[in-house]
């Protein structure tokens, strides 16, 4: 095997497995069926082993049949334990897949001489041998067999996702709506489970039973953090499968380790990156939004404080110590610096006062605050209870909402405490 084609076939196999699993995995995550994928990939093992034993070969057809039978048995067992025998659902899943997996391992070791399978293959597959596992048609060498199998499965999954895009979409997000427009959610469920079983078995030889679970769930969950659009999630999920196959292959070379394991580690890394950096649902995004929010609130409070001082005509400038919010010194300090930088407040001899733009801003906020106080009072809140809620609401009131409140109030000039509502 030459230096280009060997790695090429391995990476292609991994990429096809990753993309096939990724496409379905997105649906598994969306439909909260991840654990069913987990259970299924463990449970098909005895079926595969028995098929090996009976057919004495690695033919695809008996393997699929054995695995399919086992998958159905597992589903029926889980349902029977849960619904008829009243065992808790999670326990039913746990009992069924551990029992079937244990059976598979016992069969493999008991018939070690007769089965061309071993424990290692079960755990992390034999993707490294892909280039030598050829498919022949008569005398013709058609290329590595796993590439053909996984290629077919990928094509099938892609076709399924493209052709039934709408049906899957609607059944995944709103089963009742699906029923009302004539899409059977149950049918979609079984088609999806069937596809997951077929993909699991196809990927089993290359990446092993347990790592298939990673390929199914992890890219789907990572993609789910990046977008709310199903099309984007599907594309990203499949892409992540491909990327981790490529990166995993090279990392395995560096670490001198299992290729399938390295692929999964890359997937884990991609998930961690998504977890942190995904714009809307990532941790960093959340953190930044929270910081910005508290900065905004702190900034508003600084402006209001200065305006209120000016209104009471005591002083028009405050020292740093008077201005900064002692409860949140740090955020408040940053907010003041930000305001100076924006030119909303000015600093002279260590004292701060509102700039021209600052007055406009602050007046609008004060108007918000006092309109809210009047409105809440009109709703029945006593005058000494309206300040705090108004304080919370003033930051999020835009021009439109402000005038709506104004219109809902009788023509008044002052708030419940008798303070003038400024024009804004």
């Amino acid at each position, binding site marked *: 095997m030459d230096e280009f084609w060997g790695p090429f076939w391995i990476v292609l196999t991994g990429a096809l497995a990753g993309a096939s699993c990724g496409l379905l995995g997105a649906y598994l995550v969306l439909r*909260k069926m991840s654990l069913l994928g987990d259970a299924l990939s463990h449970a098909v093992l005895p079926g595969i082993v028995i098929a090996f034993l009976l057919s004495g070969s690695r033919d695809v057809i008996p393997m699929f049949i054995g695995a399919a039978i086992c998958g159905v048995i597992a589903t029926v067992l889980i349902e029977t334990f849960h619904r008829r025998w009243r065992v808790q659902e999670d326990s039913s899943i746990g009992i069924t897949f551990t029992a079937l997996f244990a059976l598979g391992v016992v069969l493999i070791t008991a018939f070690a001489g007769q089965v061309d399978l071993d424990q290692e293959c079960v755990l992390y597959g034999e993707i490294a041998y892909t280039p030598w596992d050829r498919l022949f048609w008569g005398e013709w060498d058609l290329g590595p067999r796993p590439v053909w199998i996984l290629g077919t499965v990928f094509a099938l999954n892609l076709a399924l996702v493209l052709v039934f895009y709408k049906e899957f979409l609607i059944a995944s997000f709103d089963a009742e709506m699906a029923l009302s427009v004539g899409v059977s959610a149950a049918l979609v469920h079984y088609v999806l489970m069937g596809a997951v079983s077929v993909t699991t078995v196809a990927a089993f030889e290359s990446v092993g039973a347990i790592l298939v679970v990673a390929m199914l769930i992890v890219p789907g969950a990572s993609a789910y953090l990046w977008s709310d659009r199903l099309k984007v999630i599907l594309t990203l999920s499949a892409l992540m499968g491909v990327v981790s196959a490529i990166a995993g292959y090279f990392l395995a070379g560096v670490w001198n380790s299992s290729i399938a*394991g390295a692929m999964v580690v890359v997937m884990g890394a991609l998930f961690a990156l998504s977890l942190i950096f995904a714009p809307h649902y990532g941790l960093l995004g959340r953190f930044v939004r929270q910081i910005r929010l508290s900065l905004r609130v702190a900034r508003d409070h600084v402006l209001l404080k200065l305006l209120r001082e000016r209104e009471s005509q005591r002083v028009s400038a405050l020292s740093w110590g008077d201005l900064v919010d002692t409860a949140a010194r740090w955020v408040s300090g940053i907010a003041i610096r930000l305001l100076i930088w924006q030119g909303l407040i000015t600093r002279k001899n260590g004292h701060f006062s509102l700039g021209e733009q600052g007055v406009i801003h602050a007046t609008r906020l004060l108007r918000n605050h006092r309109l809210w106080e009047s409105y809440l009072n009109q709703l029945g809140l006593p005058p000494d209870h309206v300040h705090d809620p108004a304080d919370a609401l003033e930051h999020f009131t835009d021009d439109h909402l402000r005038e709506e409140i104004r219109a809902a109030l009788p023509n008044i000039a002052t708030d419940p405490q008798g303070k003038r509502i400024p024009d804004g």
Partner: protein
Amino acid sequence: MIWDATFQLVLLGSLLIGATSGTLGAFAVLRRRSLLGDALAHAALPGVALAFLWTQSKALPILLLGATISGVVGVLIIEAIVNYTRIKADAALGIVLSVFFGGGIVLLTHIQQSEVGNQSGLDKFLFGQAASIVRADLYVMCVVSALVMVAVFLCYKEFKVLIFDAEFLAAQGFSPRVVDLLLMGLIVLTVMVGLQAVGVILIAAMLITPAAAARFWTDRLHVMVLASGILGALCGALGVGLSALAPRIPTGPVMVLVATAAFLVSALIAPRRGVLARWARIRANALRENGQHFLRAYLALQARGKREIALLDLASELQLPLYRVRRLATRLVRDGRVSLQNGACSLTELGHKEADFVVKSHQLWEYYLVYRSILEEDHVDRSADEVEHILTPEIIEQLESILAQEGIDVVGDIHKTHSGYRRTGEDG
């Protein structure tokens, strides 16, 4: 031959594993944490490998320490994912389980392909090899199990309340979160005890399966905990015994299969909750119901002025095939409710009593439903038909007194009931 010192050691170890995981499994299963045990066990693998890589030691305490740390990290990550992102618990579990396991596989294959790896024997942590237990390992396992057992004994009440009424626990001044964390910590320790002999992939089954089996036998928590512990110990010992016969087969899967067999047997033969017991109960109910229909049909025919009542008349009244009615009659004769003479059937005193009782409860229920405006008059028959077989004399008495207050006096009068006999599948 197999009763040598090594085997005794291994047997003792597996007994310990079974007992610990069985005991704690009862709480884990009832708290619906069973699959968390699975994730935790898978997540322990990279810890084992890293501990070996750093210390180059195969000593069990060091490897288990590594396993514990990575298991706990795995659980914390699951919690964090669920709490801070939109990803649901099931996906979070699957992600941590598979990614940690993948990392473990990478480390393990890396170790195996390096020079020291061949004799490291770390792969026994995948499927378990009870034969590798040595005396020092047993001591470690003893200490950890003792710790778990003592904790369970001390916190039994708190765990019990956590499982059945977490809000009450909070009201008592305990934080359910803390108790939950304690339970999870104990699950971690239990998984660690079993890691060497059962392996990371299947140890979860030793938590789940014996507990689920014990659940069939009792409704009481302390009985379930005990039964689950004993069952787990038996499964552990039996599994090791069986796999001693075929040393090539790893012990983990054998133990799990033994536990599964115990689960299936329990599910079938356990009294009350067992499948056979439930089936027998359903059948007995059906038999009684059909017998009472027979008696009521007899009264109905009699009320229409029929003198000689043959089985054929009853068959047409009940709209059942003759052979079924004959079978019913035979059974009722055996129970002393019916007597058959020259093809004509008559009720014994006991039969009359039961028939009157059924008619009366049917009617009482109909009146009651109408009186309470639960159903319209022409809809009550079906409900009464279902209930007439279940009402006990005490309930009848209560219904009578309620209706008597309203001036309604019900005498069991067959003329007043609507006819109709609900069909059930079984018969005598």
